[in-house]
């Protein structure tokens, strides 16, 4: 069963066709990699799927329902979380407060009450412990290292229990030791039932972690399948060599 189904998606920015009739699907419970050279449209696909920019044409289906035209907040409420290529956190909130920002169901009672936080706070602390950054829970997020921000962003996205998480270069700008940790966290979360779609340039990381890989080239999906097969696909080699 595919959780996310993207069909014939297109987006142009002025003269640049960023995404050009892209079709791909993400199987439920999978870790799917989305790879491709710089500028091939990976981040734009994320922005289209999560409602940050409207597509020119094409369709996005999630759990068999069309989600095109919805805003990012509503898409998040449906259960699709995302991170950004350059980790984005709320710098003037503490790490713990960052964890409590995500909203999945915005009922008035939930929004105005303070008492309900007890439970949410506990979960936030657990998640921070899982990511091994609970010692900076009370630190302003703006004072965290880049690696800690990456972990915090991932931890915060998980707070609303999304079913599908889109990670834009989780290994970007991160040292090898942390890289291994992040891979471990993703693997563990996936084991608990979370589906991932991951954009990543680090091939070792992708090959280790992903069950499925989709290759994007000039806005189109040119190949997909299990990592080993895709890697030997001549079209893919051509794309990466800049043919």
């Amino acid at each position: 069963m595919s959780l996310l189904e993207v069909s014939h998606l297109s987006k142009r920015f002025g003269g640049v066709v960023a995404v050009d009739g892209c079709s791909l699907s993400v199987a439920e419970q999978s870790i799917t990699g989305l790879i491709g050279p710089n500028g091939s449209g990976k981040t734009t696909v994320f922005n289209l799927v999560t409602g940050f920019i409207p597509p020119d044409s094409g369709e996005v289906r999630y759990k068999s329902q069309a989600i095109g035209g919805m805003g990012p907040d509503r898409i998040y409420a449906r259960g699709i979380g995302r991170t950004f290529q350059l980790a984005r956190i709320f710098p003037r909130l503490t790490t713990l407060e960052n964890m409590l920002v995500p909203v999945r169901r915005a009922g008035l009672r939930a929004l105005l009450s303070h008492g309900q936080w007890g439970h949410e706070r506990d979960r936030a602390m657990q998640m921070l412990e899982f990511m091994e950054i609970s010692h900076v829970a009370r630190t302003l997020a703006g004072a965290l290292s880049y690696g800690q921000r990456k972990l915090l962003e991932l931890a915060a996205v998980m707070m609303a229990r999304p079913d599908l998480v889109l990670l834009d270069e989780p290994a970007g700008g991160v040292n090898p030791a942390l890289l291994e940790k992040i891979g471990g966290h993703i693997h563990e979360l996936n084991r608990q039932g979370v589906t991932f779609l991951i954009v990543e340039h680090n091939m070792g990381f992708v090959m280790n972690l992903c069950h499925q890989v989709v290759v994007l080239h000039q806005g189109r999906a040119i190949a997909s399948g299990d990592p080993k097969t895709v890697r030997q696909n001549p079209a893919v080699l051509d794309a990466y060599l800049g043919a």
Partner: protein
Amino acid sequence: MSRLRVLKRVGLLAAIVIALILPLIAPDPSTTNLAVFTVMYIGLATSWNIMGGYTGYISLGHAAFFGFGAYSLGLLSNHLNVAPGYAPFLLVPVAGVISGLVAVLIGWIALRTRAATFVIVTIAFMFMGQLLAENLVKLTGGGAGLGFPYPQQWGGDFYNTPFYYAMLALAFLALATSWTIRRSKFGLGLLAIRDDEDKALAVGVPTRRFKLAAFTISAIPVGMIGAVYGYYVTYVYPQFVFDPLIGISMVLMVFLGGLGTLAGPVLGALLLEPAQLQFAYRFGASRLYLVFYAAVFLLVMLFLPRGVVPSVQELLQRRRQELASP
């Protein structure tokens, strides 16, 4: 640390007691007049801070709600023939609701913009309010102004007292609202919008609804305070309630005290409003105090860009850390 907390509690309690008995210990009209205006600005700055401080959307047009509140109360009490005395105070919440509705309308449009554009749009709406009050002559009396019921029965020293308590009640309301929001998940969403609006969207914060709610919530007390102000001065003119300076004063007080903090707006109003009244009194209607305002603004921006409260907090934190690690 717990000693500091006890000290804070005691200080807070003392401040509340003093605020409650002030007209008894200092009953002369010049003092109570000063108190009315200072408490008025505590309420205004605190309300403004909910939008400007928490959400980070700087509205320079909040005087619009002050004006709509004042005119609402004046027109309502005139048309309903409300007897002067305590009765007009009962209509203050209605003025608040009207200002709130105006805020929904203005916010619905203005909040399509961000940053500098939002600032300009709010100013434009403030002047539109002023123009309405000037030009709907049949309704508002236009440039000739609008009279309120005059409570003659409150002679002498007592006259200011009911207005003082009305302003105090509204200031408490604004503070309680601000405090509740700051501790709520809604408030956290507002702070997230201030830090990174698109990222907030990405984690499900319904930013449009949150911003509109914050804008409206911050406008309602301003409207009510405007209403009490109109009744207090008994006569209002369009340019003196839809007054850009009132809008700028609340902003300046919040910046001085500390943007986005609970105590900041209170402190800012306590420091600036008495000084401003002094200047206005000394130099009459020359509005020379504007120079003073500009100077304060410059000094704050240069030396205390985050305001007094956050700077002091930081200082205390550093001292504590120094004490902890000898």
